[in-house]
């Protein structure tokens, strides 16, 4: 299942969030990403959804992909040893599903592409046994296990591992993937989506976006030209970069900076897409001191190259661009509640009639946070 080649990609991203935490079904996000059909090439699409498992909200939801039954059996042994499995079940799908409405597809035959030959898709709702967290925090423990599974088990891949959230991804056009996973039947307060245009043939389900760790999910349009150093920066902190895609570094960097180093979200984005020195030199003292220190200490975390990224996490959604905005990103709001982000304005207008629409400045994060607390 795992593809050993590195896959640069262009793409489309879209995100919807209700700050009030109102849960909505997946139809809007599917329609939004479907509108940008031409930004993908049918080699990958995926979604992250938050708030979808209210009945299992306190358990870690692992979305898993297995090449075959042996892989599943082997991994299950491991999961039984390391977690308390509360429930496990096949992830419901509609085999051969397609998105029925018109898309921007250039021709019909490449416009719809029924989703076929998926890996075994299974989800596990699990608790971390208490005695396991004497020396490490619960989340640290989960991260270790995810790294372990992804690096040591062949034919096995953890697509997502957060609470009350999940990643749904695969090979195909994103709108078809959405129908395949029956996202119209789920309800979430944050939805992000990704349509992929890799420049060679991967055929690997795990290689599609979003990339997730704990409740972090990343959809990413672009390429991280600084991948080489971001990877080497992360490795001493115990992250195993095995997925051969630049996007995974972004998920791990947020995990490191925000969860482990407890950086406020806006400062974490400052580390990943730092202001230029010429701008730092003009900042007021206090701000300048912070920005300078961030660049001095977190230089290895600086993301360089063209990108627009939407980060999803339990408490919110963050969109940001590279420092000179080499990839598109438009944001919009409607009322106090709804926040939209997308590669194209049209993909927002397709599903909403927003009050304000703007293109955030290069390197400036748009942060949407829930009005209420979740873990």
């Amino acid at each position, binding site marked *: 299942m795992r593809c050993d080649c590195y896959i640069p990609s262009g793409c489309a991203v879209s995100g919807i969030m209700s700050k009030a935490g109102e849960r909505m079904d997946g139809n809007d996000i599917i329609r939004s990403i479907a509108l940008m059909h031409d930004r993908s090439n049918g080699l990958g699409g995926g979604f992250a959804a938050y708030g979808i498992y209210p009945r299992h909200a306190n358990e870690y939801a692992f979305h898993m992909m297995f090449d075959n039954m042996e892989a599943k059996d082997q991994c299950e042994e491991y999961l039984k040893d390391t977690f308390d499995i509360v429930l496990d079940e096949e992830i419901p799908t509609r085999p051969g599903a397609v998105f029925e409405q018109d898309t921007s597809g250039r021709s019909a035959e490449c416009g719809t592409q029924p989703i076929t030959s998926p890996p075994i898709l299974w989800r596990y709702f699990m608790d971390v046994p208490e005695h396991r967290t004497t020396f490490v925090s619960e989340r640290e423990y989960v991260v270790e296990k995810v790294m372990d599974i992804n690096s040591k088990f062949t034919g096995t891949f953890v697509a997502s591992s957060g609470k009350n959230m999940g990643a749904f991804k695969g090979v195909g056009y994103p709108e078809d993937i959405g129908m395949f996973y029956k996202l119209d039947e789920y309800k979430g307060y944050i939805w992000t989506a990704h349509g992929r245009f890799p420049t060679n043939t991967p055929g690997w389900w795990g290689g599609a976006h979003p990339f997730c760790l704990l409740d972090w999910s990343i959809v990413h349009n672009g390429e991280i030209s600084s991948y080489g150093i971001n990877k080497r920066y992360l490795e001493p902190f115990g992250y195993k970069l095995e997925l051969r895609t630049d996007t995974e570094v972004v998920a791990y960097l947020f995990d490191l900076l925000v969860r482990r180093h407890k950086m406020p979200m806006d*400062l974490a984005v400052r580390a990943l897409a730092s202001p230029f020195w010429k701008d730092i030199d003009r900042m007021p003292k206090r701000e300048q001191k912070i920005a300078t220190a961030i660049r001095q200490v977190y230089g290895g975390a600086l993301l360089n190259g063209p990108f627009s990224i939407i980060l999803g996490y339990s408490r919110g959604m963050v969109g940001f661009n590279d420092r000179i905005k080499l990839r598109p990103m438009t944001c919009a709001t409607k009322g106090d509640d709804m926040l939209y982000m997308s590669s194209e304005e049209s993909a927002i207008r397709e599903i909403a009639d927003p009050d304000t629409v703007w293109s955030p400045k290069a390197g400036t994060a748009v942060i949407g946070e829930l009005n209420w607390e979740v873990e």
Partner: protein
Amino acid sequence: MSQIPPEFIVKIDYDTCRRCRRCVMNCSFGCMQFKDRVVPDHKKCVACHRCVTFCPESAISITKNELTYKDSANWLPETRQNILKQAETGGILLTGMGNPRPYQILWDHMLIDACQVTNPSIDPLREPMELRTFLGRKPNRLEFTRDGNDEIKLSTELQPQVKLDVPIVFAAMSYGAISLNAHRALAMAAKNSGTLMNTGEGGIHKDLNSYTDNIVVQVASGRFGVTSEYLNSSAMVEIKIGQGAKPGIGGHLPGEKVGEDISKTRMIPVGTDALSPAPHHDIYSIEDLSQLIYAIKEATDYTKPVSVKISAVHNVAAIASGIVRAGADAVTIDGFRGGTGAAPMVIRDNVGIPIELALAAVDQRLRDEGIRSHASILCAGSIRNSGDVAKAIALGADAVVIGTAALVAMGCRVCQKCYTGNCAWGIATQKPELVRRLDPQVGAERLSNLVTAWGYELQEILGSLGVNSIESLRGSRERLRGIDLDEQTLELLGIKPAGIGQ
């Protein structure tokens, strides 16, 4: 009578020579005499090209003395010449500058990546391209607090950092090994270019007091010129343990070079040899080094980073790791091709390892131990152009150190006679009539030009890599590929062979 045949032939075209005697005045090696016309003593010529450059009629040419020795692929002319010299003198062969032997130059076996389509390159003429670099110890993470007004404050106190506008600093060359004018030129250029010069182990002349922010002061085994004032008139302090050209060997400044000024700066009597012992006599272990590091930090009130310079030897990675754990804020690694004012030839030509391998090993080792951010890495030992700079940074260096390249910019012809004190270009000499030949202002300008030019070229390289900040290249070995290298060397360098994608 000496049996050593002349290495070079000085040819004078008497048809065009107008007998101005300029060459006679310019040759500091006493090769030219005037007897009705210019008569060269070929044996004394070192091919420094001073006369050639200053002859108004271009009447002089210097050529290799071909067939001085009958051909042999094994017994090369220099081999036999050295034997002859030692047969005549019974002494250690001294030499200057870096290792000239044809060892494989690994920089020339590395190629840099560039962007095409999927990630766009960036135009450095239109977009900002950042080279700013900070030397010094960094914590692994920052901590923030919120004050009463809900404003975020940085609660981590950073150790002292030295800012460089370009990641290129001038190498340690002592006042003594090189002239005061050369020191002046280096200091001025460091200031102009927003970088650092390094005093080397000879102390600092009072004329350079105004350049404090651009000076690294060195503390070496001889402790010449080390006072608390000296330590404090610097941006950074460097403890010199070793030098790439002569690992494990001390220094020797002959008494003839120790005049009035040098004697004051070094704090030794006029005319005495200045001998730096091979080891520091108070450092016989890593814990001793740690004590010196902290003694210096105490003496400078913890306001300056302290770096430790070592030569690249087989076990360099473990040594560097020990140095960082001993409290150093920066490590300078000097490769076996690094220059020197004077060194025994057998050491220069045979001891140490290439800087490329040493750098790769040190950077990886510090990362493996999770202490890479605790010290900056400076890479020295024959950085010849901005391509080398980019490759060194991609392998993991924070900044590079240039010595020979800086001298060449000031006029050095790499004649390797620095140890004689006769440098015809006024660089590696203390003879007032020769020192005068180097105008510090002009030297500074040429040095600044070089740094500026390399800076522009680095920006071009960054742009072609699709990144706009030097930290995205630093340690990004993914952007390097090896060519004509065996598997093991590739592994040691941590790079893939050319032809393999990401």
